[in-house]
């Protein structure tokens, strides 16, 4: 289900910063070689396709290495809670895992908080005042969990919203960085995530250069924070471009 044969896979690896740190070989197992052979600052090739689900108002499918996600958007629909009048629209998000998504069956129920994180990441980008009294439902399904699940879900969801024609300030791109010992590793896979000492997930609106969601886990010192944020912002900018080109392709294909 990967990209068309013959086209180079688009990737959004950030540019290396001017001052590159010399690799620190500590002699113990902190000298990490990435299992899929990528560099520390190299992201997986990103594949997006809109219009995956015909019956939805808008939908998108994303595949980043082994992480496969499909998102459908329904709406704007009449709000169920018709008694609570609101002059701005409502956003309802739900992220669920299929039972076969994780290596051990049924492990996806550990991630109940992803729904509210997706909601927070998207609500800053959507113009809620354009659909008062109605609700937009975003349903995300993780078909296979290969690491960095939530960032892929967020990016895919914002593409699905664009496909549905919901007015937004900007697309939302998300990237995560893991800290393994002294190394900062971008777009971690499942194995790297289980060994990580700390992680950062950043979602931003690339054209507006605004961060909508930011989550740090683990112990970080200030220079590491600066470096990690710069890395993420760079990668988000490039990912934004990839998402835009996917939307353009979809509209030009439908025009033919």
């Amino acid at each position: 289900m990967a990209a068309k044969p013959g086209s180079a896979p688009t990737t959004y690896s950030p540019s290396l910063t001017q001052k590159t740190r010399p690799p620190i070989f500590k002699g113990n197992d902190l000298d990490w070689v990435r299992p899929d052979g990528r560099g520390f600052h190299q992201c997986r090739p990103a594949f997006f396709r809109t219009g995956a689900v015909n019956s939805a108002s808008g939908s998108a499918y994303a595949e980043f290495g082994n992480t496969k996600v499909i998102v459908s958007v329904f709406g704007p629909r009449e709000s169920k809670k018709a008694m609570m009048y609101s002059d701005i629209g409502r956003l309802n998000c739900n992220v669920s895992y299929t039972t076969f998504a994780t290596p051990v069956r049924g492990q996806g129920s550990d991630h109940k908080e992803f729904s509210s994180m997706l909601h927070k990441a998207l609500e800053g980008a959507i113009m809620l005042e354009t659909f008062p009294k109605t609700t937009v439902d975003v349903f995300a399904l993780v078909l296979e969990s290969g690491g960095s699940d939530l960032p892929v879900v967020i990016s895919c969801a914002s593409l699905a919203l664009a496909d549905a024609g919901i007015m937004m300030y900007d697309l939302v791109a998300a990237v995560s960085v893991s800290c393994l010992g002294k190394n900062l590793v971008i777009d971690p896979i499942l194995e790297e995530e289980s060994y990580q000492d700390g992680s950062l997930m950043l979602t931003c609106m690339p054209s507006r250069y605004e961060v909508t969601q930011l989550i740090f886990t683990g112990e970080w010192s200030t220079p590491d924070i600066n470096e990690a944020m710069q890395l993420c912002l760079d990668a988000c900018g490039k990912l934004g471009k990839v998402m835009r080109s996917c939307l353009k392709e979809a509209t030009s294909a439908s025009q033919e």
Partner: protein
Amino acid sequence: MVGLSVGEKHFIQGGIAQDLRSDGRKRLTYRPIYVETGVIPQAHGSARIRLGATDVIASVKAELGKPSALQPDKGKIAIYVDCSPTAAPMFEGRGGEELSTELSVALQRCLLGGKSGSGSGIDPSSLVIVEGKVCWDLYIDGLVISSDGNLLDALGAAIKAALSNTGIPKVNVASETSGDEQPEVNISDEEFLQFDTSGIPVIVTLTKVGRHYIVDATSEEESQISSAISISINRKGHICGLTKRGGAGLDPSIILDMISVAKHVSEQLINKLDSEIAAAEANEEES
């Protein structure tokens, strides 16, 4: 939640811009913190924190369990938060579930560090009794009794106080054990081990209202927020966890600025909290 008129909103925002909040505090001042420890005798450790009208209780219980196969030399720690309907009627039944999950996840992130266990405020390897077979399972439960804003900071402080009040019973292991047998353990009733809580971080929530940041927002001020950042900082000044809350977008330079402001505020907060906890423990011993 709180309904505010347009006039009240302007009043709050204008006051904050002039470094004067509705209750007379400055932007970076906390409300007075009252700490009581040992409030739940049946738990191994407990504490109650009052931050203005926000009232939370944290309790720590330790039970014997088996360490997970992936990390046989570490104990397990679980943090859960429950929002009681006494705080707000909408918390009844499943209403408070979203807020509870959000608070639980944020506390787990701030206090337990990364998946490999590093950066954790509590050292999980101090909880192991027999490697691979027996360990302590620590259950930390937070209860929100009354909510007037800034629940995350109050819960973080309550957990810190509860952990410094916690006494884990000493365990004697029967020496002769072979292979797969579960070793026999005797839990002593008299001797207790205290936790070293100097490594536990505090959580500082910075709320951005207009162009200024305030610390320790009341629920009136919280209804105004465009965005907020909760940062957990330990004594060394390292960030142990950061969550952005609220929907609006933030410029990255503002985030870095907020981090440095939070570091500055956290030093005072850690010192204040430590002295309050010590005073509370001394009170408890007298009574």
